[in-house]
């Protein structure tokens, strides 16, 4: 019996290791290839050497990346855009979900249904109308010491942030999570004199950590990976995010080592983000019954 159990455990462990290897290999290949010249990348392709940092290893590709692309600028832009979108997304979407989950408002089911319905509309179909709209919207600009009203958000940071703050899926996630928090807690807080905002801030949100972590990751990833929208609305190089930078490398003679080096650079923040929130993310996904 003990031996059978050991064998089963060993089998499970082996399966896990194989799955882990399959998941990690592309990343290892990218990191290793980023250190090799192009000829060697293709030369090693048909052997295990493709995954090993052997041969002519150097950081030349990384140096070349910074020569070809303002990578630091793109990274800073993406970090700023993603962080602000996440921070505002957490507050706006949780407040919306709180209202829909906790407050007794007539028609809230219809509103919630309408919000969920937007999930089936792909962004590509909205892109052009949205582009037209953002080009009509006003904005306040500093001109010396006076504020002036300008028209059009094209070629700005805000056009890469504001349209993506409100998010139907985040509202849904928060809503489902808030539904699992006993309403008696609200009533107890109300008896203690708390208003809606205090209940939101001091009772419900502190219990919704896993949902917040999930929303943070699910908002961060598309913001970080954003490609089509910045292409359409941003013309100045100094405002571009990292994903647009990847296309800088696809010239007639592609330098694959540089592609891998840039890929490695822009993957690191995503991996760090996931590792930081891993436990909460899995808890939230498990508790809300949502598969990624």
């Amino acid at each position, binding site marked *: 019996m003990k031996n059978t159990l050991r064998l089963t455990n060993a089998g499970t462990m082996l399966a896990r290791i194989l799955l882990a290897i399959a998941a990690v290999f592309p990343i290892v290949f990218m990191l290793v290839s980023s250190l090799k010249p*192009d*000829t060697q990348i*293709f*030369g090693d392709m048909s052997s295990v050497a493709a995954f090993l940092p052997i041969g002519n290893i150097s950081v030349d590709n990384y140096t070349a990346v910074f*020569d*070809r*692309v303002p990578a630091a600028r793109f990274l800073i832009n993406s970090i*700023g855009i993603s*962080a*602000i979108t996440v*921070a*505002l997304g*957490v*507050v706006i979407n949780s407040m919306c979900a709180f209202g829909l989950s906790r407050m007794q408002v007539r028609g809230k089911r219809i509103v919630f249904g309408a919000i969920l319905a937007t999930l089936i509309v792909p962004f590509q179909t909205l*892109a*052009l109308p949205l*582009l*037209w709209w953002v*080009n009509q919207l006003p*904005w*306040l*600009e*500093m001109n010396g010491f006076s504020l002036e009203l300008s028209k059009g958000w*094209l*070629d*700005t*940071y*805000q056009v890469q*942030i*504001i349209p993506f703050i409100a998010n139907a899926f985040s509202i849904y996630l928060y809503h489902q999570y808030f539904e699992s928090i006993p309403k008696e807690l609200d009533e107890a807080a109300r008896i203690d004199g708390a208003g809606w905002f205090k209940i939101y*801030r*001091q009772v419900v*949100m*502190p219990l919704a*950590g896993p949902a*917040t972590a999930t929303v943070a990751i699910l908002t961060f990833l598309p913001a970080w990976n954003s*490609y*089509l929208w910045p*292409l*359409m*609305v*941003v*013309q*100045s*190089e*100094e*405002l571009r995010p990292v994903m*647009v930078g990847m*296309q*800088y*490398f*696809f*010239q*007639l*003679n*592609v330098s*694959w080592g540089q592609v891998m080096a840039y890929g490695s650079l822009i993957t690191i923040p995503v991996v760090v983000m996931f590792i930081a929130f891993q436990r909460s993310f899995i808890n939230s996904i498990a508790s809300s019954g949502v598969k990624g």
Partner: protein
Amino acid sequence: MNKKVSRVLVASVTAAALIGTLGACGKGSASASSGDANEITMWTHNAGNVEELGAIQNIVDAFNKESDVKVKVQAFPQESYNDSVVAAASAGNLPCIVDIDGPNVPNWAWAQYLAPLKLTTDLSTHLPSTVAKWEGETYAVGYYDVALAMMARASDLKEAGVRVATIEQPWTKAEFEDAMTKLKALGKWDYPLDMGTAGTGEWLPYAYSPFLQSFGGDLIDRTDYQSADGKLNGDAAVAWAGWFKGLADQGFMATKSGKDSTQDFLNNKSAVLYTGSWAADKARTALGDDLVVMPTVDLGKGPKIGGASWQWGVTTGCANSQAAMDYLSFSLKPENVAAVATATGTIPASTGAAALIPAFAEGGVNRDFLTYSRDYALMRPETPAYPIIANEFGKAVQDILAGADAKSALDKATKSIDTNIKSNGGYKN
């Protein structure tokens, strides 16, 4: 825990404030066509192409020194450049000068993105494939062209007993097939020929429609550009498709080549590489004198290659189109054209510029490419329907390589093209 929530709220308020700040300091300087009359904006597809962008910037700097109106360059990545332009056109935000991939010029002219050019430059000495015309007007002009060719190692050809094809005597269809058979018999490569079959997008019509044309077919009937029927699905086209698929069936080429055909060729994974002039310098550096560059195959109607590369045009909404025209005229000086062609390793557009570049002057190592471009280049159909033609032809090529019936695949492409042309009123001006 409450502190945590407070922190999130504070962070969010800070974030909101940051957006406001970014709005003030993070505004780019994309000026629309109707922008500042003393500055015109120019868009190019060269972001990341350090050499070409540098050469363009040098021309702009030289122009700005002597002009009251300044040109400002904004570079976009090539892969997504067309999307950026179309989006800007939708928002009424096009710049004054744009660069355009040659075959798309008629479409952009028809869509009224581009205005006819009025330049002071004499374009008669330019390669015809570098001057884009539609309905009798010139809409764009380029500094360079590229040419398709076949590259091989002289030592491999000698070992297989295959003669080196020349401009005077390109390989015939029978010679080409014989060469492939002999090279395959050497047993050194899985596939002796690499035609870049993993390529996508514009590569498919650019690379493979010349073979179709050498068979006697075409992408469209060029008499009035209203139908592809009989040209894209006629007997010659079906024969071409059979021949092309046959190269894979006989084991001469892979139905899907490696991601980087040039690199595979340099790593000796293929004997003959079908590619463009852009790969020549890299291959010559790696192989030295062993590299031979040969014209493409004569499949019956002479060797053919696609004409037209990136070109420059002026948009219809440009508030200062005279300055834009002045800039383009300035930029077409032989020394400027030569500088761009040198930086990119491409074929200079004018004879004056070619004379300034040793590699392309008489007897130069790249002179043959200029000859290919002059003698073999056939413009991709100069019609606004070209984007749909290219797309449908590309799909047909991929279907044929995947094993689809050639006639059915070509009929399907023809039908889609004809339907599109009809639904757009024949793309009349």
